[in-house]
């Protein structure tokens, strides 16, 4: 009901208003005593005050009313068409003595509507400001969340964020993830007694257990041994058990299967629905970076483990190859002495078996060399002597070194070299190793009376055709390359095995080629050696037709300083 107060000492006016307003269900009163007026206004501010301008001490009354109830509608009752300019600053409307009932009522109603609209506007403005503030707090909290992978900091940011957005009296944060053991962080305005802390511990553990619907929690917590960290803002004052009569909210801090803890918040005034949303949001938001931090930590740990394993592997290979080499040397020496005939005549069949033993000693020492090479490259300990190198010199050397072996198998090695190739920055000895390996493989896998061709040429990366299977692994940078190809007419490689040709021990998996001997380490070593030259290796092959092994080394690298 709209409350109207008239201030007038004219009885006829007061009666007139009384009739009108009572008839129209307004709560109307009329006063003329100054003291009574202010007592009434202070006790129960009316919505509308009608002031008769003929009242005594009008100026003073106006001022006081404006101070006491700035939002009340002030209407002055004036003599016809004469407005005192002083009144305008106080007035919302004017009535004259002659005005009809309808006129009076509509004046009041219009002003009431205006007042209501203004109030609504001011309320929504206030809400808007609140939301904006909260949004700001949320925003700064989430940017803090995204800025760190330190779990203790994340939990601290969460508490600070809630402080900014919700201005609580106390938060009870159970964190499972910041230290080796669970810890209860009590962030409080005032100091807490030991009894209250015990009660909060018990309450938090109960809250925590309730998160798992009677199932066993992932980490069981004993309230007796739970570690407590206190953060007190004003230690001079102290909370009592009455804290439990405060309004409170609770939220788990978890993401999917991962539980990082929970948080309960207490506040003397009650929380609004917006407060609840904000609280939930912050508790949910912190879970994601906590999860990332957990994953990050796991990755770091796994990496450290891997690095250690890798080191152990290198050490293992080094030790093993040393331990293998020494007895192998003794075996080889003994065989050498026996085969030289210095210990007596060797029969033909004895020689056959001694040779067999010798061949295998050589094979074994080859394997050990390969293993050592590979472990050195992988550990980044291989030394390269880079110098301007002409690939044709390397090809000529390998051809002359292996043509005897090829001939003994009835094979011919041909070369097809582009003349005047530019020098490349390379370790000639390592390139010989690569090419020797490729040609030896070709000899190994090619049947009698066929040919093996080694070719070289200069080609631009865009003109070099790389087998589809290697599109993802072999990427050549734009520029000129020296391209070498070793082509054979051997047994070839099935398409599905092409990509694995350069995997470690790939050959060992394949029983057919195992007969041909070798460790299966030659190609992976070649690959690593070429990568150290910024080059690449790949192959084309067709079963039972033959294979083409290519490698390319950039020409531009000769210009860069060694």
């Amino acid at each position: 009901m709209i409350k109207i107060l008239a201030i007038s000492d004219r009885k006829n006016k007061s009666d007139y208003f009384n009739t009108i307003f009572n008839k129209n269900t307004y709560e109307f009163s009329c006063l003329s005593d100054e003291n009574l007026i202010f007592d009434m206004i202070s006790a129960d501010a009316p919505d509308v005050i009608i002031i008769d301008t003929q009242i005594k001490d009008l100026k003073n009354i106006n001022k006081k009313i404006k101070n006491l109830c700035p939002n009340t509608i002030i209407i002055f009752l004036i003599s016809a068409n004469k407005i005192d300019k002083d009144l305008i600053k106080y007035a919302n409307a004017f009535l004259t003595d002659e005005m009809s009932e309808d006129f009076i009522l509509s004046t009041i109603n219009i002003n009431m509507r205006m007042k209501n609209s203004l109030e609504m506007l001011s309320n929504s403005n206030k809400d808007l400001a609140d939301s904006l503030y909260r949004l700001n707090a949320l925003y700064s909290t989430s940017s803090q969340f995204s800025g760190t992978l330190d779990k203790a900091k994340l939990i601290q940011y969460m508490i600070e964020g809630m402080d900014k957005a919700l201005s609580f009296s106390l938060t009870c944060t159970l964190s499972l993830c910041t230290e080796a053991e669970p810890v209860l962080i009590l962030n409080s305005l005032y100091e807490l007694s030991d009894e209250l802390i015990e009660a909060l511990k018990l309450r938090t553990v109960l809250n925590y257990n309730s998160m798992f619907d009677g199932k066993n929690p992932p980490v069981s917590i004993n309230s007796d041994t739970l570690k407590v960290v206190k953060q007190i803002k004003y230690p001079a004052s102290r909370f009592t058990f009455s804290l439990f009569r405060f309004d409170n909210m609770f939220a788990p801090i978890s993401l999917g299967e991962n539980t990082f803890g929970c948080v309960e918040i207490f506040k003397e005034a009650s929380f609004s629905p917006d407060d609840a949303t904000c609280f939930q949001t912050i508790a949910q938001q912190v879970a994601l970076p906590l999860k990332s931090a957990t994953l990050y930590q796991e990755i770091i740990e796994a990496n450290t483990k891997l690095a250690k394993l890798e080191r152990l592997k290198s050490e293992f290979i080094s030790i093993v190859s040393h331990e293998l080499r020494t007895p192998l040397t003794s075996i080889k020496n003994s065989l050498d002495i026996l085969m030289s005939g210095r210990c007596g005549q060797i029969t033909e069949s004895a020689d056959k078996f001694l040779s067999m033993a010798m061949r295998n000693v050589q094979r074994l020492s080859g394997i050990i060399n390969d293993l050592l090479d590979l472990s050195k490259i992988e550990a980044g300990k291989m030394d390269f002597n880079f110098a301007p190198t002409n690939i044709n010199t390397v090809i000529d050397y390998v051809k002359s070194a292996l043509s005897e072996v090829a001939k003994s198998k009835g094979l011919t090695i041909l070369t097809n070299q582009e003349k005047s190739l530019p020098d490349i920055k390379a370790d000639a000895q390592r390139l010989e190793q690569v090419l020797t390996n490729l040609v030896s493989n070709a000899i190994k896998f090619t049947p009698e009376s066929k040919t093996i061709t080694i070719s070289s040429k200069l080609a631009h990366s865009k003109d070099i055709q790389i087998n589809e299977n290697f599109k993802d692994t072999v990427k050549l940078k734009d520029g000129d390359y020296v391209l070498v190809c070793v082509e054979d007419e051997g047994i070839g490689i099935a398409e599905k095995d092409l990509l694995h040709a350069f995997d470690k021990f790939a050959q060992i998996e394949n029983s057919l080629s195992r007969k041909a001997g070798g460790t299966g380490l030659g190609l992976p070593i070649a690959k690593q050696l070429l990568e150290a030259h910024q080059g690449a290796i790949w192959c084309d092959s067709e079963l039972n037709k033959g294979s083409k092994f290519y490698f390319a080394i950039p020409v531009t690298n000769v210009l860069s300083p060694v």
Partner: protein
Amino acid sequence: MKKILIVDDEQDIVESLKFVLEAADFTCYCAYNGEDGLRLAKEIIPDLIILDVMMPKINGYKISRLLKYDAKYKNIPILMVTARSQEEDKLIGEETGADEYITKPFELDDVVNKVKQYLK
């Protein structure tokens, strides 16, 4: 007759080297650890030393350095036998003074030829 000192903790290797070197008319002295090797080297002042790298107590590099810094012995050629292990690679960066490196497994004939070369 030229005197050769063979130092290696692997007795079998010492045995085979001794066999081929004696067959090539050298007198061989053998030591099976670094300490004995060093003592023997100073005692007999051999014409050439074949020295293993990895040995307990004193490794071959150390022996080589000790001898090469001493005017009395610095002209004795040293053939260093290595298994190319990583521990050895770490040491090889230092100045050892060895005249020649022989990688295990080695050809006995190569060793004999190298010895002959140094003692010509």
